[in-house]
């Protein structure tokens, strides 16, 4: 495999676009990324498109109908919340393999206000188990947080501090769906969704798109692209003790992190910023340990001591994270690459992590799929 560089990134503000459609949203981000790279559709040799809710509707080809049909190969990807990051990885592999020199990844989703309860339940026939809504995302991540409370005495307040941090971060990100600061009291007093997560501790639904152009080393030299993909890893669930009865977001993240650090030749201590999958506040705290940002059982201390806040030892989700930036499923993983790339190029504006050289983007799709992409300059 050869080296792969990020030549251009693009993203629209996450939010609600009821008057637009999926190909149109995806096309806007794609054109932004191509312009950022200094390339046009004529240069693109492969498109990987990620969109979960329209996984059977040829989204990639429909994006090309909006921006230029050159007859290139198109791969449409669906991998739960890891849909966008898996599309990015397809583009990375296309270039890494040597088969193509320029590949485009587009992640897009239009959820409206309907997407929260995608985990099951609701009128989908009769189940044999006595489960009513226990597989819904809020219930799953509520229980995952409770497991950490059980093991280490983590408190609801520590989880709430993560929501405070990410909402505060988002006030510096003009592309964030929400840009409003909330206090610890606001978070704790907000409507309960699934204990211990209140409303502000759950990511919103929404619409959005993001795109990334990846290129070969020769192209990168021509274009002056400096951000390199140090590792791109995808894992699924291995067998674990409670074999998926409680969907396990940790084991496959740990496996992915181990592989990613080994392939990238860096350790967690070398990482300057992390964009991780904070679909719920409880999830972010678990991933501090899963990604090796701290030792076992220390994640509560990490948030207590502001180590993961902007300006802290290891800033996490300076974009506002899924909690505030938003989580249009297919777009999320590509938007993470956008964020990390902007910091590595020193173009992240008011939220810039100064001197960032290595960044890590992590996504979990329940079911499960985990991607970790490590970028560096």
């Amino acid at each position, binding site marked *: 495999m050869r080296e792969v560089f990020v030549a251009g990134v693009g993203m629209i503000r996450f939010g609600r676009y009821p008057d637009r459609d999926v190909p149109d949203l995806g096309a806007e981000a794609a054109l932004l990324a191509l312009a950022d790279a200094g390339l046009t559709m004529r240069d693109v040799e492969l498109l990987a498109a990620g969109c979960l809710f329209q996984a059977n509707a040829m989204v990639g080809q429909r994006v090309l109908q909006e921006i230029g049909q050159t007859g290139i190969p198109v791969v449409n990807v669906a991998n739960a919340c890891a849909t966008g990051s898996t599309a990015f990885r397809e583009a990375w592999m296309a270039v890494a393999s040597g088969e193509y020199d320029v590949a485009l990844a587009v992640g897009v989703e239009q959820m409206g206000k309907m997407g929260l309860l995608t985990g099951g339940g609701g009128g989908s026939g009769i189940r044999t188990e*006595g489960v*009513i809504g226990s597989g*819904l995302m809020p*219930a799953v991540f509520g229980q995952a947080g409770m497991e950490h409370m059980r093991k280490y005495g983590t408190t609801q307040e520590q989880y709430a501090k993560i929501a405070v941090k990410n909402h505060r971060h988002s006030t510096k990100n003009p592309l964030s769906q929400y840009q409003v600061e909330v206090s610890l009291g606001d978070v704790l007093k907000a409507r309960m*969704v699934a204990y211990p997560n209140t409303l502000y501790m759950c990511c919103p639904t929404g619409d959005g798109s993001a795109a990334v152009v990846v290129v070969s080393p020769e192209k990168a030299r021509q274009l002056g692209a400096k951000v390199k993909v140090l590792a791109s890893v995808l894992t699924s669930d291995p067998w674990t003790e409670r074999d998926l*009865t409680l969907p396990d977001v940790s084991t496959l993240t740990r496996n992915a992190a181990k592989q990613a650090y080994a392939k990238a030749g860096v350790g967690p201590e070398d990482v300057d910023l992390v964009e991780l999958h904070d679909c719920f506040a409880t999830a972010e705290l678990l991933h501090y340990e899963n990604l090796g940002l701290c030792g076992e059982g220390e994640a509560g201390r990490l948030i207590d001591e502001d180590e993961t806040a902007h300006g802290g030892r290891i800033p996490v989700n300076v974009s506002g994270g899924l909690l505030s930036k938003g989580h249009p499923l297919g777009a999320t993983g590509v938007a993470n690459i956008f964020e990390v790339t902007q910091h590595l190029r020193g173009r992240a504006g008011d939220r810039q992590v100064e001197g960032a050289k290595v960044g890590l983007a992590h996504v979990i799709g329940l079911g499960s799929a985990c991607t970790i992409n490590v970028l560096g300059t």
Partner: protein
Amino acid sequence: MGQRCKGCGAVYLSSRRACSRCFAQGPFEEIPLSRRGALWVYSIVHQSSPGVPVPYVVGVVDLPEGVAVRCNIIDVAPDPARLRFGMPVEMTTAVSQQDREGNDVVAFYFRPVER
């Protein structure tokens, strides 16, 4: 009833083609599962799919045979003060909903063991 892999002893609630731990393609041995277990973790859901009454308690119950069951916990107030990690629970059945023809659908639940 549970399914135990004769190769490595892993227990599953449902049948599988091959063991997901050791990949042995059976045979699986059908074993009875206890009605009683211990609550591993829980959450209290306040927002759910349309038509599902909230709040309700969801949990994962560990059975002594080495298998975990995802379930709803009933006959307990939906309040963290009333729930305890490791608390003993037992299986029960109740009507969960009606199917399209209006017949009752009976599902299993767990409830705290009375002291």
